[in-house]
């Protein structure tokens, strides 16, 4: 439950930055998880993968980095803006 709440917060932060209508264009979300944050890494990763594989996301994946300390944060969001030759 705790990990799911955090995963949902990752989705909220992503929406704040790209807008709801662009969530389907998100390809990767970078997340830092501190090794003393109290988060169970595997459960958190599974929750995130589950959320990011369902609408309004289309094909997004989490890129989770373990870090020292207790920080939990979204570091970046990658968005596919389409064919650059257009």
């Amino acid at each position, binding site marked *: *439950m*705790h990990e799911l*709440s*955090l995963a949902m*917060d*990752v989705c909220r*932060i992503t929406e*704040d*930055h*790209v807008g709801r209508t662009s969530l389907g264009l998100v*390809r990767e979300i*970078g997340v830092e998880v501190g090794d*003393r*944050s*109290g*988060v169970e890494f595997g459960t958190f990763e599974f929750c995130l993968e589950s959320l990011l594989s369902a609408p309004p996301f289309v094909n997004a994946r989490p890129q989770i980095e373990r870090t020292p300390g207790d*920080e*939990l*944060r*979204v*570091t*970046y*969001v*990658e*968005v*596919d*803006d*389409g*064919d*650059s030759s257009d």
Partner: protein
Amino acid sequence: MAIRRIEVREKLMAKNDEIAADVRRRLEASGVPCLNLVSSPGSGKTALLERTLQQLGDELNIAVVTGDVQTENDAERLAVHTDRLVQAVVTNGACHMDARQILVALEQISLEDTDLLIIENVGNLVCPASWDLGETAKIVIFSVTEGEDKPLKYPRMFERSTWAVLSKTDLLPHLPFDPDKAVAFAREVNPELEFFFTSALTGDGMDEWCEFLRQRARAGSGTAV
């Protein structure tokens, strides 16, 4: 395909932390200390609070907010022992309380008429450690029926707590529980942790606990952590 990277660097639970800071500001402005009682289910938080309200209810204005996953049973038990409103927060399945719930609860509390605010958190030794409620300090409670190694199994909660209560000490003669070992394990993860030893059933240790609460009420907010 053109991939654009947006730098974010935003903390998770930042919204909760913002609200917790607001709660803390309000409490500090009124000089009301707030103690967040955390434990596993069944450790005796409600029994400790019942006895506390019996002993101190006429002397201190104690406001209580209880968190429960599904019922208001704890609030109903406590309401018997105080004239003040005991607020029940039902989390509807959530394993922890969050700062927003405390902010809402504060709307019903006259802080000018309050000496001490006590939060009885949801019984869970994992998730509540991660949620700042704006409290002055966390107090972890564990009972002699739980095993001495609880602090080693749930170190984050013991690290985050300033005080600990070992409860149900009346059962010690019947159990192979070693209080010295429990305290030693707890201080392995948090050397600063101070202990109280209580039995809400017999009243043993309650005088020391109540004197501690008097001191906290006199000290006001912002001095415990």
